[in-house]
């Protein structure tokens, strides 16, 4: 009867107060901050003459607006520049640790937290950014919050929250050749839909998940939000511990041993009850490609663009019709026949060193197709970039005709100069294919890094598992 889920354990260990209506005050261990969703929160704090409760819990970085070229010259767009300068000024004023734009540790907030060991098992982690779910890969309770909540966490170290339901997504078996965590994430979303996880915290488990590296687990948890769940998580195991050990913010010595003893308890107990269980067979997952304007509009590389006539209901039929019109695709077109104009490899989903390696392995010794106008690789952080350069991956990309950029969100959401022009079609390793996401009128197909690199070389989508 006392069997708890991982989510129960994380939740229970952070309840400061429980109210009768089910809402609770939850203590927050780590608050990550970036330039887009924090200025109004800092301003609110100042207007109310409040101070941050515990600045030591905060770690700030500019990532959304930063340019990915000629960074030494500063930010050309004055509005973007003001936003980044506002973050700098706020962090300086309140004594918040910030990795500034030209710091080698700068990068996408969800890449740098784990990279620094600032994300640890057992923590509650929040950030004014929906992809905070990424950090759940460390057996942490991590989710995105709005700006009012950013201010609330700054002022009180707590969040007013209500416990979600728990969903178990179990993936058993071995993934096939060329099939990655990204394909698992897209397959899960294709199965349960973009609202399938709404109201739930998802735990990913099963032998296929245990076999993933930490980076793969981060990719998977990153996209829990695309399945509608604010939080995704994976139990702590030896892979988790090995990844964290020795990172700058990680505990050391005696503290490390104490921490590890606790972290080993961070898994769902045998017999723990979930409100929903979804099972997938790893061997059945093929490389995925989205065809529409929502991540659930996805099929495998062997598939075809669906026919709206076969949609399960009228609302979805009109959604599919609108998506096909926006994407300029005809029903029943084989995915492998879709030609692309641009390629984007990066983002908090797939901007880590293993992603760089996977893409470089495909690109090595080959050339980007003539019809591809731009293929860019944007490492997730300065340290990822440095590591990739140490391994010579930058040269592999550059020789193949890719651009090798500076770290940031870049064309994942196109707040800086990296964007699609109207009508351009892009193979992207990011997480959202919404209308206009990568630039007004731009058409995004979500894929894994290896699939994106293969599409860059072929000029159209191609099955990387047959390469």
């Amino acid at each position, binding site marked *: 009867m006392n069997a708890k889920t991982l989510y129960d354990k994380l939740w229970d260990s952070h309840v400061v107060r429980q109210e009768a209506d089910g809402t609770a005050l939850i203590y927050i261990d780590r608050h990550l901050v970036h330039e887009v969703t924090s200025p109004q929160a800092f301003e609110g704090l100042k207007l109310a003459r409040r101070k941050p409760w515990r600045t030591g819990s905060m770690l700030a970085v500019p990532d959304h607006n930063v340019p990915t070229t000629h960074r030494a010259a500063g930010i050309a767009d004055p509005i973007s520049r003001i*936003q980044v300068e506002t973050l700098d000024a706020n962090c300086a004023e309140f004594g918040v640790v910030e990795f500034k734009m030209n710091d080698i540790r700068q990068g996408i907030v969800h890449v740098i937290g784990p990279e620094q060991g600032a994300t640890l098992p057992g923590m509650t982690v929040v950030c004014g950014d929906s992809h905070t779910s990424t950090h759940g890969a460390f057996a942490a309770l991590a989710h995105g919050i709005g*700006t009012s909540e950013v201010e*609330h966490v700054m*002022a009180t170290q707590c969040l007013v929250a209500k416990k979600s339901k728990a969903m178990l997504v179990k993936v058993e078996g071995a993934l096939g050749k060329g099939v990655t965590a990204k394909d698992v994430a897209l397959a899960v979303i294709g199965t349960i839909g973009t609202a399938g996880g709404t109201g739930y915290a998802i735990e990913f488990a099963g032998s296929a998940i245990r076999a993933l590296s930490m980076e793969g687990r981060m990719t998977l948890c990153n996209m829990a939000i695309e399945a*509608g769940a604010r939080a995704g998580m994976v139990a702590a195991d030896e892979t988790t511990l090995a990844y964290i050990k020795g990172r700058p913010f990680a505990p050391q010595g005696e*503290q*490390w041993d104490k921490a590890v003893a606790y972290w080993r308890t961070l898994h769902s107990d045998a017999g723990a009850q979930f409100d929903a269980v979804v099972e997938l067979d790893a061997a059945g997952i093929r490389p995925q490609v989205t065809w529409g304007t929502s991540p659930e509009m996805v099929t495998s590389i062997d598939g075809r663009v669906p026919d709206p006539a076969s949609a399960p209901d009228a*609302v979805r039929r009109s959604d599919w019709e609108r998506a096909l019109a926006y994407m300029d695709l005809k029903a029943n077109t084989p995915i492998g026949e879709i030609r692309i104009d641009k390629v984007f490899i990066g983002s908090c989903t797939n901007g880590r060193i293993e992603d760089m390696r996977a893409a470089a392995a495909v690109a090595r010794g080959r050339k980007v197709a003539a019809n591809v106008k731009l293929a860019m690789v944007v490492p997730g952080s300065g340290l990822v970039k440095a590591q990739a350069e140490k391994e010579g991956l930058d040269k592999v990309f550059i020789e193949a005709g890719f651009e090798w950029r500076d770290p940031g969100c870049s064309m994942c959401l196109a707040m800086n100069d990296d964007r699609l022009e109207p009508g351009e079609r892009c193979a992207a390793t990011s997480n*959202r294919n919404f*209308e206009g996401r990568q630039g007004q009128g731009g058409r995004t197909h979500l894929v894994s890094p290896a699939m994106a690199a293969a599409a860059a070389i072929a000029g159209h989508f191609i099955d990387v598992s047959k390469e």
Partner: protein
Amino acid sequence: MRKFELLDGLVVPLDRANVDTDAIIPKQFLKSIKRSGFGPNAFDEWRYLDHGEPGMDNGKRPLNKEFVLNQPRYQGAQILLVRENFGCGSSREHAPWALEDYGFRVIIAPSFADIFFNNCFKNGLLPIRLDADKVDALFKAVEANVGYKLKVDLGLQAITAPDGTVYKFEVDAFRKHCLLNGLDDIGLTLQHVEDIKAFEAKHRAAQPWLFA
């Protein structure tokens, strides 16, 4: 925060599912460091025919006459009627800021994305979940009747249609209390400073590495 008690408001039907936050307020407007002024750019890519950027005179931009918000019969609408999974995507609070600044006070949908749903309450917006068949009935009624209004009573948790049909809805007691009274929840939480400090001391003793 602005209080919400009662509203007798014009309804505009936006017949789409999975409306995401990029559609509600495109990212170029997120560069602002302010909380206000996003209303003219709500649904920017659907509302205007040209590409919008911050600082443009929106009054001079070409309107997409097809888009429902631009139709004369829906001017001044305060209630937005939409399909499922409204507000999916990013955590940007600019989305509720834009909707509130546009003039909306209530959003009715079969379902909402979690973070967006939460953000609404912090900004004086009331998101209401109704069963899909009821939402469908409302879509038909709005489209059939020019000037269709609904009465929303948060205290009673009820929506009353012109034909007298009453739709009850659920809302958390705490959120209802805050919205009815226009309360800032930071102030409310700080009433529990002692609880937070006590928890923190215990937490620090158990996991000191979190406080290094």
